[in-house]
């Protein structure tokens, strides 16, 4: 029999598993000491899940690394202590710490592919855990335990996975392996650092469900780190909100969500497109200002400079302590004025805007197909003679967009939305079909053949703010270049004037024209990207996931900017995203894509309520919503996305569809059902049945107090 070798703990289940008291972590660089986490308190009991929420730079990941005591060469704990099962972790020897890691406290990482050794079989990586932590265990036993655990995390064909290398399985499966690896020695505490951020939404839902089951089954305590409030709502019992290295509010989850008592927490909620938000009536309210730099924190409350309730003389006097809110056990806030603020009134911010009337049709896509040729050089292909294969990136795409409208294209990876954007912009040419823009068919006009006017009138905003600008040139030079290219101005003086005007448009200081991209933050770079797109007064702008790489509050500000500009210029916005909450907030019409085909399209209201395409239904149920009054139907899709080289015959969704009706789904392409003018669903299920579906997202029936 094997015995787990671990340090001695004098602990009973009524005591906390983990306790952080006044923890302070700093990094030491050439520039000096930079505090990353300050005065951090946390208590986790057995079986409890605590969420750590915040934006980038708030210190949440640093806390996790601190608990594991793995802060790299230049990080260190400079104050407070961490008690694990009653023992101060600083008192552990190196050997005891090594025994602790992986067997008492285990971690699940953000990027599963990078966290697995690419040159070692998964089986070996799994088996290492019990082999190194349990004395007396044999290889055979370790193997069997690993196989069993893979089955527990719902991986099909565990034996095959044991022999495989990480790159041979999908992202979702990799994360399941990482979870299995973490659980193999039955840890008491699980640290999850953004475990689903790198995964598709429908895959994410499966992982979240798995984690929940595990927590129940093994009674493991969890610390769940995320920036996604909806996710925390679904998985945790308690929540800690962090800002600039400190916890600003903590408490039971329903408490904090419904009765928040810190201006930052409220600011965060105002930035999230909840189902109740509406871009004209109740727009998102970005938090003004910027995150303070770690070495330039203001005196007093760190959030003070950005807070609408800031009281000079009080809020900037000295360090703010956590205050307990009476009547609410465990609910604390780091706000001096929590008792004075009227939490019921809505925050000051933008007034409701005017509704934009959609105009004439500006873009018409008809029967668009984009196939890529792929040379197959495997032996099988050579024998059968079929060397040339086709990746059907876009298949039968048809829809329109009107002036001033926002059309969202929604889908997960591999659905073909990026390819579609490329074809539209002229970076690729269509294989078949029509793209009529301003009465010109652009389908086989690559960018080289388009006139400057055509180019200027359809521009793109890109996803990754860090790559969207050329690092070697100044902002002014890049904007000026585009202005000249589009033929807007020729005279150098006038060009420079226009550059400054564009910077005004995106609310950036004029002196940024002299700066280089590395001196700007992600949000600022994205604003420049928007300025660049609007330089030629375009009729249509394609925005490819413009805010998914940005923090919540920054994303809100950029989204807000985009809608303002659009409203002023009546530009048509083609918005590509996987974030359904944002889509519901922004879009007038929605096109849902799966594996290159359109599954459903219609107005936002039509798509977000029954009848649904089964994929839309699953997608809607997978998106976490940070609203306690909403009840969501739970639909988990089996399997993973089929390979684009080998798409399923018939309906592309049939391999994972939870409403599959039978053989017909596998053999025949689904017909286009018309539910109303403009609302089309591609499905074999009869329309009446679809109309009878329950809504996925609904208000909770039980009345709140």
């Amino acid at each position, binding site marked *: 029999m094997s015995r787990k070798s671990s340090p001695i703990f004098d602990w009973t289940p009524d005591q906390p598993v983990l306790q952080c008291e006044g923890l302070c972590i700093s990094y030491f660089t050439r520039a000096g000491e930079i505090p990353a986490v300050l005065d951090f308190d946390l208590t986790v009991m057995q079986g409890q899940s605590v969420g750590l929420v915040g934006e980038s730079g708030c210190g949440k990941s640093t806390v996790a690394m601190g608990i594991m005591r793995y802060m790299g*060469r230049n990080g260190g704990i400079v104050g407070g202590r961490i008690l694990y099962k009653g023992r101060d972790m600083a008192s552990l020897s190196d050997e005891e710490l090594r025994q602790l890691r992986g067997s008492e406290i285990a*971690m699940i990482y953000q*990027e599963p592919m990078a966290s697995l050794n*690419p040159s*070692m079989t998964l089986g070996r990586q799994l088996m*290492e855990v019990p082999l*190194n932590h349990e004395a007396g265990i044999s290889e055979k036993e370790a193997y069997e335990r690993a196989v069993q655990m893979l089955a527990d995390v719902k991986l099909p064909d565990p034996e095959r996975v044991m022999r495989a290398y990480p790159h041979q399985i999908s992202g979702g499966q990799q994360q399941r392996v990482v979870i299995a690896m973490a659980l193999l020695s039955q840890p008491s505490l699980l640290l999850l650092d953004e475990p689903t951020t790198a995964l598709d939404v429908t895959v994410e839902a499966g992982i979240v469900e798995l984690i929940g089951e595990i927590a129940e089954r093994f009674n493991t305590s969890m610390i769940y780190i995320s920036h996604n409030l909806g996710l925390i709502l679904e998985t945790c019992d308690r929540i800690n909100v962090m800002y600039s290295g400190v916890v600003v509010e903590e408490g039971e989850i329903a408490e904090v969500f419904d009765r928040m008592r810190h201006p930052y927490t409220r600011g965060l909620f105002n930035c999230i497109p909840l189902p109740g938000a509406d871009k004209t009536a109740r727009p998102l309210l970005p938090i003004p200002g910027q995150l303070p730099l770690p070495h330039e924190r203001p005196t007093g409350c760190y959030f003070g400079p950005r807070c609408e309730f800031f009281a000079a003389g009080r809020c900037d006097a000295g360090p703010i302590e956590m205050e307990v809110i009476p009547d609410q056990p465990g609910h604390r806030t780091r706000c001096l004025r929590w008792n004075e603020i009227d939490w019921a009134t809505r925050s000051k911010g933008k007034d409701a805007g005017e509704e934009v009337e959609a105009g004439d049709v500006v873009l018409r896509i008809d029967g668009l197909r984009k196939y890529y040729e792929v040379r197959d050089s495997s032996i099988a292909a050579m024998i059968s003679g079929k060397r040339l294969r086709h990746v059907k990136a876009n298949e039968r795409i048809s829809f329109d967009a009107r002036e001033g409208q926002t059309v969202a294209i929604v889908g997960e990876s591999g659905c073909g939305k990026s390819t579609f954007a490329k074809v539209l912009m002229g970076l690729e040419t269509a294989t078949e079909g029509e793209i009529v823009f301003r009465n010109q068919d652009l389908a086989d006009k690559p960018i080289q053949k388009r006139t400057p006017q055509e180019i200027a009138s359809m521009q793109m905003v890109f996803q990754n703010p860090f790559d969207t600008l050329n690092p070697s040139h100044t902002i002014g030079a890049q904007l000026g270049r585009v202005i000249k290219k589009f033929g807007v101005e020729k005279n150098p003086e006038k060009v420079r004037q226009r550059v400054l005007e564009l910077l005004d448009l995106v609310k950036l200081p004029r002196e940024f024209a002299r700066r280089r991209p590395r001196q700007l933050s992600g949000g600022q770079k994205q604003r420049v990207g928007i300025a660049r797109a609007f330089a030629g007064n375009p009729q249509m702008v394609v925005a490819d996931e413009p805010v998914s790489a940005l923090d919540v509050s920054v994303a809100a500000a950029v989204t807000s900017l985009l809608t303002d500009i659009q409203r002023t210029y009546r530009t048509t916005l083609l918005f590509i995203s996987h974030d359904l909450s944002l889509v519901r907030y922004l879009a007038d019409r929605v096109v849902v894509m799966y594996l290159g085909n359109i599954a459903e399209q219609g107005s936002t209201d039509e798509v977000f309520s029954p009848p649904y395409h089964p994929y839309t239904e699953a997608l809607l149920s997978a998106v976490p919503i940070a609203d306690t009054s909403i009840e969501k139907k739970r639909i988990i899709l089996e399997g993973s996305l089929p390979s684009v080289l080998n798409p399923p015959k018939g309906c592309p969704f049939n391999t994972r569809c939870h409403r599959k009706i039978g053989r017909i789904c596998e053999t025949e392409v689904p017909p286009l059902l018309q539910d109303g003018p403009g609302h089309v669903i591609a499905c074999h299920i009869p329309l009446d049945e679809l109309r009878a579906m329950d809504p996925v997202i609904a208000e909770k029936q039980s009345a709140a107090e």
Partner: protein
Amino acid sequence: MLIFIGKRLVYMLLTMLVVSLILFLVMEINGESVARRVLGPFTSGEQIQAWLAANGYLRPWYVRYVEWLGNILTGDFGQSIRFRTPVADVLWPRLGNTAILAGVTFAIMVPLALTLGVLAGMREGSKTDRTITVTSVVTTSIPEFASAVLLTVLFSTWLGWLPGTSAMSDGWNSLELILPVMVLVLYGFGYIARMTRASMAEVMQQLYIRTAVLKGLPYRTIILRHALRNAMIAPFTVIMLQINWLLSGVIVVEVAFAYKGFGSLILEAALNQDVYLIEAATMVAVFVAVSTQVLADVGYTLLNPRIRFK
């Protein structure tokens, strides 16, 4: 996998073919200049014409090329102008000598460089790392002919421990091999060490090493089982390509120490305009170079699971 190897081999043959064609055209397209080289600069026009006719040089170049290629492939390299014997008689023994020199060099250089590289990469930024890096930079800054002079002065002239030349005039003397090997190792280990260091340092930064640490694995296991198998992939290619480098470096060393090897043969052939010897030696050198490239490619594919298993 087999297809990949097959494709590489075919590509290699094609490359060799093109090289041989270029070489042939450059050296022998002008039959008269060949004749002059063979017969000497003072030959008359008639003697040249006679020689050309007797040796088949009046035929079209593509016919001559095919015949030449056939000869090369069967090992008939023609007659050396300088040595007045069949080229093959001079070439193979000299190649053998160089092979010995190269073999001993590699046997010392590779383990040394890999060990130093791994140590430096493991402790990036430490004193060990800085020392090894700076040493590597310094040793690769001293050209082989310079270090040959420096080491000869040190070990032969001043200390008298080692012979100053390696002509092996009294039969095989292993002592005479020491200085040439030392020069080659001194210059060559630095590059391999630095590439290994870079590879190791990069691997140590990877997230999967963090995973291994946080899994509670002992340090030894992490280095030996997790880090090395990823860090050694790139250096393998580098080592293979160093064989290519060696073919160049060997020329200088052999000339400096009067070692009768393949490198000094090429130089002698070039200086003496010995056409057939140049052609044969070049073809052999190219063959070795291209083979090592193919081996490097194939090896890299085999070592890297991401490419090997699709």
